[in-house]
């Protein structure tokens, strides 16, 4: 299956069928920091993904301000 990744934007091929959590594991990605989207629909980690599926793995982590400074401001 073709998997679209971000940061940096790239596409990789992963053999299916495979559960979403196993695709994440194969790409060394943490579940808690990513969403798996199949054809614009969100799927859970135990969803079985097939070779024909168009998959996006979207990172969800953001924020650049230094945490340890007094500022309570991040990119809002």
């Amino acid at each position, binding site marked *: 299956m073709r998997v679209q990744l*971000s*940061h940096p934007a790239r596409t990789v091929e992963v053999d299916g069928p495979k559960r979403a959590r196993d695709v994440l594991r194969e790409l060394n990605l*943490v*579940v*808690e*920091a*990513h*969403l798996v*989207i199949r054809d614009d*629909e*969100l*799927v*859970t*980690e*135990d969803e079985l993904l097939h070779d024909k599926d168009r998959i996006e793995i*979207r*990172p*969800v*982590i*953001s*924020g*650049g*301000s*230094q*945490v*340890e*400074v*007094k*500022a*309570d*401001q*991040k*990119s*809002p």
Partner: protein
Amino acid sequence: MNCTKCKTKAVIKLPRHHAAFCKDCFTCFVHDQVAKAIRSQKMFGKDDRILVAVSGGKDSLALWDILLKLGYKADALYVNLGIGNYSEQSYEKVRRFAETVAVPLGATLHTHTVELEEGAGIRELAKLVHRPACSTCGTIKRYQFNRAAIEHEYDVMATGHNLDDEAARLLGNVLHWQEEYLDKQGPVLPASVEGLAKKVKPLYRLTERELAAYCVLNGIDYIVDECPMAQGARTLHYKEVLNRLETESPGTKQTFYWGFLERQSKKASASTTMAEKDQAVLHPCTTCGQPTTADVCSYCKLMARAKTTMSR
């Protein structure tokens, strides 16, 4: 996997809540968590005017959407930082959200353009004053959001800080034993003195992953790219560590941050203490009048340094 509530097909699993939800039940869950945060921390009421700080990212657009859907009077301010394509793209996301969702619900979008008012974009300003971009950005945004909230007479300013942001910041402060910053780590900062807006973080009960999922499921188009100036920031490392712990042991982030808040609340009226402390140290900046602990506030100092360097 089926939805814990309605038993239809689930689209997201939340191990920290031992639950899985379909789209509609997940949206209800997110709205409930925000309503609970607002109520339990006495953030604001239905008659208050709220100014949401929006960036085009998932958290701030989700926050604006949720507050409007919950029936609050929420306008927003976007600060255009002048970071090339990134700022152009993020403004486009905000503008489109405002046009299609917020304005039809009666809300207004304010904008502030750093290049117009401060004379240069963040990247250039940071170079001029020899400070990291994130810290320059923080100073300008904090100043302009507070100024807009006061000038437009909003009752409260809301930011999109989520559970991951707060847990990562707490971890950073604890690792470096920055105890003096812990007082300011609650989800509500009072309007302690004249000229200082009340600030709240209604998303502190939700993780980044839940907010990104909320956006995907509700068709909110946000900027996925990370700010090019933030790459390698320490926040991201703390978040990564916490997410590895969370994956192994669900609930770690909330236990860490909420546990901290519980301990804070047991201290004698924490917000009163914070207001009293603020009143003792804050006074008007001699240049602009905004509250500061020094004679001249950090924004005016920054701008004075930038102008001196620019005129050379």
